[in-house]
């Protein structure tokens, strides 16, 4: 670099050309994207058939629902409660096996632990497929293969958990400092020894945190899965709604809310302890 350059600065009058203007003309891509976005917005609103009438009518119906739902019907509370516990168990069992399977899958999918890059790519695409297909669709697939009931729900949650956990486990595994693993490798440890002695203990707190998120996620999804017949409280909710027994529906919703909140509280307490 030449130091003389800096000293010979030009006069302020000649700065116009170099000073950035206040506004910049948007690029062609920006134009196209804006037009596409705006046309989808307009078409979307049009197709939804939004009208003052419908919104107003909707409010009345909503008031109707709330009026009929109060007070919540407690007559079948023990049955509903049992059904919610079943839903919770579905979520727990599904997450447990999902997490159990996620660990080896994540090890295969991480660049620093995979036996071969091809295996890494293969497992990664399988995991992302599990994640991108929504859980309700998995539930439909499992209902037609294993029949109605909790088993289909559990299988759905296993797949959903793998899609979620294997990805985050693998991200954590790839972040792990390779020093400790090398230290174990230098003792003459086997591949399994290295992974179980360094990678897994180092990643463990993060794995637990992710798994707890997976439980919370699984409970929310287990509630919905009943709607397509994959077991759990969703069936009861959907039945109560279609029979217009809104007071019972409200009872179910309240209990779901309680269970979800309790689980979230417990899991966040555990997370604080572990991490």
């Amino acid at each position: 670099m030449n130091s003389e350059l800096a000293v010979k600065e030009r006069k302020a009058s000649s700065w116009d050309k170099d000073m950035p203007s206040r506004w910049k003309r948007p690029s062609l891509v920006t134009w196209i994207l804006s037009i596409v976005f705006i046309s989808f917005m307009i078409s979307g609103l049009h197709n939804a058939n939004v009208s003052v009438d419908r919104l107003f009518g909707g409010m009345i119906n909503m008031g109707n629902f709330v009026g009929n739902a109060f007070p919540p019907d407690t007559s079948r509370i023990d049955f509903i409660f049992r059904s919610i516990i079943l839903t919770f168990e579905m979520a727990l069992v599904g997450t447990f096996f999902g997490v159990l399977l996620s660990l080896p899958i994540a090890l295969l999918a991480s660049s620093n632990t995979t036996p071969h890059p091809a295996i890494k790519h293969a497992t990664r695409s399988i995991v992302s497929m599990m994640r991108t297909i929504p859980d309700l669709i998995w539930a439909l697939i499992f209902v037609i293969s294993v029949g109605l009931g909790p088993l289909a729900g559990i299988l759905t949650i296993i797949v959903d958990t793998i899609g979620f956990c294997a990805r985050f486990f693998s991200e954590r595994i790839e972040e792990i400092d390779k020093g400790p693993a090398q230290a174990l490798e230098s003792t003459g440890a086997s591949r399994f020894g290295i992974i179980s002695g360094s990678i897994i203990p180092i990643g463990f707190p993060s794995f637990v945190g992710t798994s707890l998120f997976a439980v919370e996620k699984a409970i929310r999804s287990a509630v919905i899965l009943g709607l397509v017949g994959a077991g759990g409280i969703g069936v009861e909710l959907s039945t109560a709604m279609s029979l217009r027994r809104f007071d019972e529906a409200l009872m179910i919703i309240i209990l779901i809310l309680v269970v979800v909140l309790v689980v979230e509280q417990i899991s966040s307490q555990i997370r604080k302890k572990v991490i």
Partner: protein
Amino acid sequence: MKAVEIDTISKVYPDGTKALNNVSFSVEKGEAVVLLGHNGSGKSTLFRSITSFEQPTSGEIRIDGITITGLKKRKLRPIRKKIGMVFQHFNLINNLSVFQNVLFGALGQTKFTFQTYSPFASKELRMKAMECLSRVGLTHLAKRRADQLSGGQQQRVAIARMLMQDPEIVLADEPIASLDPKAGREVMDLLWEIVRERGLTVVCILHQMDIAKEYGNRIVALKSGNVVLDSTIHALNDKFIKELYEKEVNEEGDEESIKVDVKKVGVL
């Protein structure tokens, strides 16, 4: 008998960087060699080649007469068992106990991995881990998590883990570079004591000339991938060391002063 033989090793990285250029030297059994060099001198690459974490582009490395370059991982394991390592950043498993970390030193010896897990380890192995800890004076911290210890203590745990391995050769990569001077000296003293009493072969990377002079009975100095000095400490002319050392400092110093000049002018 030669413990480590480095035979015309060269390393060129894919981006064309030449890290090592026909480096050759050998280490006798029971000898303590200090490998000296600044950042970018190629000493880390050389070290990583000796430990087979990296393959040299050409040349051969022999441990106890066995060629390790190009060896498959499974065949490397029995050789790695003989080589204990100490790292700059200790490389302990932070969220495990000190005791468990030391037990993992035996990973290369047990038939199954679980036999080194503290709950399942044999009584002898658990006793041996405590003996190793007692050699570095840390038995009272066996139950602590590794990351609760000070840097000096962590490095001593790492030495205990290395002892657990019953190594014949010790490789130490800047073992005191991330410690304060006092803790660093304690660790060096301890390491050298242990190495002497067991008659181990040592290759120790350092970048401080004063410490190198105190501990090594032989110094090998690397500069931009070449061996520029290989001599026993007694035969070394103090003035020569000083020149070699100061010359490098000056070169770096010059670079510094150029940057400062540029800043003064105001271009940057």
